[in-house]
């Protein structure tokens, strides 16, 4: 299975590098959303709850863009058929696509988080970085799993662009709650406060539950 996962991941990353379909769009979307929030809230610098909320809402919406496109190439260019013909475990597709989405998110955040710090956070935001990395890691894993599941559910429908956000947003609300609660103390105006462990636990729990759930049902989405 490892070989199959590696092959699909390699193929997807190479395709993304050549076509640049998802990552630039997601990053650009995140940047535009920061600007929109600046004018919408009419604030020059954010801190605490509000800063955490703006960051996570933006990342969540950017992820939805990525979910939309995740399986499109497989469907339109026969990737599903080729994968089903190959004698490999179907879970390999789930793992590979989740890893790809995770990589996309990491790449987007590499641009979006520093940009956010420059555009909307006050000075001294750098000390929040180690804690923020932990939250980003756990939340990305959850978003990647949910995104893979929702992307696979929606790719065969007629109204894909509509179905993905409609399903993905309610499903990721527990993740959003935990991520915002965990990030808020890091972005306090007076300097970063310690990372709340209980919200990291919830993020981890969410990842595990949705990971198992996706593992259990994903096969049925590929059966054709």
């Amino acid at each position, binding site marked *: 299975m490892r070989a199959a996962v590696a092959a699909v991941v390699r193929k997807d990353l190479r395709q993304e590098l050549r076509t640049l379909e998802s990552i630039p769009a997601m990053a650009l979307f995140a940047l535009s959303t920061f600007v929109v929030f600046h004018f919408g809230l009419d604030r020059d610098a954010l801190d605490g709850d509000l800063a955490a909320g703006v960051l996570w809402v933006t990342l969540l919406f950017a992820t939805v863009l990525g979910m939309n496109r995740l399986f499109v190439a497989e469907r339109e260019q026969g990737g599903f058929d080729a994968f089903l013909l190959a004698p490999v475990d179907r879970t390999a597709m789930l793992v590979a696509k989740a890893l790809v989405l995770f990589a996309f998110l990491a790449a987007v955040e590499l641009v979006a988080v520093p940009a956010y710090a420059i555009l909307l956070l006050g000075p001294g935001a750098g000390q929040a970085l180690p804690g923020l990395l932990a939250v980003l890691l756990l939340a990305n894993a959850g978003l990647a799993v949910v995104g893979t*599941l929702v992307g696979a*559910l*929606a790719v*065969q*429908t*007629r*109204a894909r662009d*509509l*179905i993905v956000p*409609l*399903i993905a*947003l*309610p*499903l990721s*609300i*527990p993740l959003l*709650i*935990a991520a915002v*609660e965990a990030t808020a103390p890091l972005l306090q105006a007076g300097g970063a406060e310690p990372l709340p462990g*209980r919200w990291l636990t*919830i993020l981890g729990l*969410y990842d595990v*539950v949705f990971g198992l*759930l996706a593992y*259990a*049902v994903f096969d*049925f*989405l590929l*059966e*054709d």
Partner: protein
Amino acid sequence: MFGRGLKSLSLASAALVTGAFALVFFYAPLDADQGFIQKIFYLHVPLAIVALCGFVAGGIYGIRYLRTGDRAHDLRSYVAIHQSLIFGVGVLVTGSIWAKASWGHWWVWDEPTLVSFLIVFLLFACYQPLRFSIEDPERQARYAAVFAIVGGAFVPLNFTAVRMAEALTHPRTFDSTSNLPGPMALTFLVAMAGIAALFVTLCKYELAAKHATMRLKALKRRLSGEPAALPLTQRARSAAPQEV
């Protein structure tokens, strides 16, 4: 197939619902704190419990459909979620009225149960858009089952997360129903049974109606001399899950 015992079930649930309302208005004492408006509790809470159980039941029938491939389970899953959505509208409306009467606002975000319910409701409201934007009936049933399973598992997870988020700032004021005084608890239990019976009855009616429509279509097709087993695409546009 689905119509058996429908008459006695309807009579039983009509009797239970009537009895429950009689108890609510003539037997249960007025709440010392909230007065008359508290009586909406006997409608709101059973509706919410039944709707949530219906969503979870939809997920369980989804599992059974995926395991057996029996279209009757898919139909049951669809009907359970459909009826739960209708009950869900009732939950949100009665919850809103209760919130307005006792807290002065139509919506309060610090009532975790109500907020979690809204999130679950919004998720399951996507069930039909997802289902009916897939053309192939077999794939439609399979994808809908996967969605129902994910949604059913999401219900407890979501309630835990939302409750934890609120518990930090707002300790729950109105806690479990187990500490109700005797007459109130009795009324609540009867109301609960009535609403649950109503839910099962409505589900059975919808199942019977859908089944009858399918039979009728099949007979009409036979009458017009078409082959009995039509290509699946011909039936894909109907607004209901199809039975083979």
